[in-house]
């Protein structure tokens, strides 16, 4: 992959970060911190890694599928889908407003292209991804199923039910990623309920675990490409992805305080001054 390609992806990520802060500012609610932290991952996924079509069809046969388990970072997903052509970027202005397809947390109820299941109540996405992956195996469809979870979400028991199932059933068409930003609503994850050695936990559950830096575009692309080479070997793959909550906006970075708070007018201007408008604001 050329340096030009990386630069192009970075430009897309910058626009998506602008979209995110503008979306949460417009409705004065939503979750900017985790959304900003994962922008590079989403861009890498939708503009480089996934085999997918923006002419959305629910079944996704012959395509790679993506599921967002930590649904509260919907702003980054919606902005990515819009910028990837699933729907008009202008619709991002309706986020969290009445009669919008862009619900606070992702839903299929309003038929927004790109969304295959509702999420928001944590811990459920990995199970759903495994179901989709199991069906792909049954259909002899050799594409992958990707899923993103939060690190705080690892406190949910269902995640570990699913982790056990995946390894036991050799679900090697699944590539899960954990957004390992170390923050949750009430504070740092290690102060709220310590995950201790998360890598060792997943390895002991029978997963192939890779480490990555989710805020370095070149590295996250390489990590996801490497993850695909590790698939098909009898084990599910976990990408333990370090990110910084709020990445790209200095005053939001590294703190749980911007998990679920919207910027005011002044804060929005400060944020936008740090994020280059590359494609054009919606």
């Amino acid at each position, binding site marked *: 992959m050329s340096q030009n390609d990386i630069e192009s992806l970075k430009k897309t990520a910058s626009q998506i970060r602008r979209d995110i802060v503008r979306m949460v500012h417009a409705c004065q609610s939503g979750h900017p911190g985790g959304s900003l932290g994962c922008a590079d991952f989403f861009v890498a996924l939708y503009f480089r890694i996934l085999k997918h079509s923006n002419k959305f069809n*629910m*079944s*996704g*046969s012959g395509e790679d*599928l993506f*599921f967002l388990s930590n649904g509260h970072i919907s702003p980054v997903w919606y902005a990515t889908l819009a910028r990837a052509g699933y729907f008009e970027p202008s619709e991002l202005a309706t986020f969290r407003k009445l009669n919008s397809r862009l619900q606070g947390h992702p*839903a*299929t*109820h309003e038929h927004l292209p790109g969304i*295959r*299941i*509702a*999420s*928001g*109540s944590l*811990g*459920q*996405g*990995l*199970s*759903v*991804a*495994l*179901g*989709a*992956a*199991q*069906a*792909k195996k*049954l*259909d002899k*469809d050799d594409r992958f199923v990707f899923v993103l979870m939060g690190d705080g979400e690892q406190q949910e*028991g*269902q995640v570990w*039910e*699913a982790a*056990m*199932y995946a390894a*036991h059933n050799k679900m090697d068409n699944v590539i899960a990623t954990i957004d390992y930003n170390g923050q949750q609503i009430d504070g740092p994850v290690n102060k709220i309920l310590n995950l201790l050695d998360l890598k060792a936990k997943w390895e002991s559950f029978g997963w192939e675990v890779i480490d990555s830096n989710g805020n370095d575009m070149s590295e996250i692309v390489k990590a996801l490409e490497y993850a695909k080479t590790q698939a098909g070997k009898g084990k599910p793959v976990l990408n333990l992805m370090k990110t910084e909550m709020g990445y790209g906006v200095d005053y939001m970075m590294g703190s749980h305080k911007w998990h679920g708070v919207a910027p005011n007018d002044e804060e929005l201007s400060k944020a936008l001054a740090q994020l280059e408008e590359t494609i054009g604001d919606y």
Partner: protein
Amino acid sequence: MTKLTFTEKKDTRSGFGAGLHELGKKNSKVVALCADLTGSMKMDAFKKDFPDRFYQVGIAEANMMGLAAGMTISGKVPFTGTFANFSTGRVYDQIRQSIAYSGKNVKICASHAGLTLGEDGATHQILEDIGMMRMLPGMTVIVPCDHEQTKAATLALGDHEGPAYLRFGRPSWPIFTTGRPFVIGKADKLIEGKDVTIFACGHLVWNAVEAEALLAAKGISVELINIHTIKPLDVEAILASVEKTRCVVTCEEHQQNGGLGDAVAQVLARFNPTPQEMVAVNDSFGESGTPTQLLKKYGLGPENIVEAVEKVLKRKK
């Protein structure tokens, strides 16, 4: 109408197992998931003949619901199997978000519902599941009354689109619906009468059949309607019968709160206020015992239905 009799008893869960096996033959999109209760759920035949489409998930019901939801995305028709308690209360949020709100075509099949589970006691005797499931928008709720109807309901679900809850049980129970048509959402009038209407579901339909014989001997003419589909409710059939009899008894192996009785009362309150008595569990948990002992102790036997009818007849205007 011919008198209702039975020659054979079988458990309703075996009706589910037989229906699921037949569906497996008919429809290659049908898959089955089970949380470590293959034998109890009578899913062995499906497992044996369609091993590629049978998923053993272990004792992990939350994951099972998520897996099933995920499988629907490419068009599979998943049937989940575990006890009613673990099919509903334990996984309510998974059903709510990943299945009901997401509009996924998952068939949640639940055995060992109600008091007739017997000796295992209250931890397993769920009496709140109908209420929980019928509150979910878009959820179809079916409570068949015998082996044949459970089989028919399972087969009907194979062609039905959308989330559904199928509730059945463990005890050996009279078979009396052989040859009767089964249509989701369409009540089945078993006995025509004029003095009182009994609406019943599940195992208590047979108790109502026995009660009707006792009442007929006293000169009381009972109309008995099997409401196998609690949601969507056959409002038309309910109102048509009540128009004639002007008093109602509902019978179910469930709490008074949230079940068939509640559903019927809601219809009557809105469209035709009518005296109603409820044969159901009165805000209580169950306990260990034989099915017959428990139905008697908790007021769900044929004699309790007779009492309820006599009571409601006195209230009739």
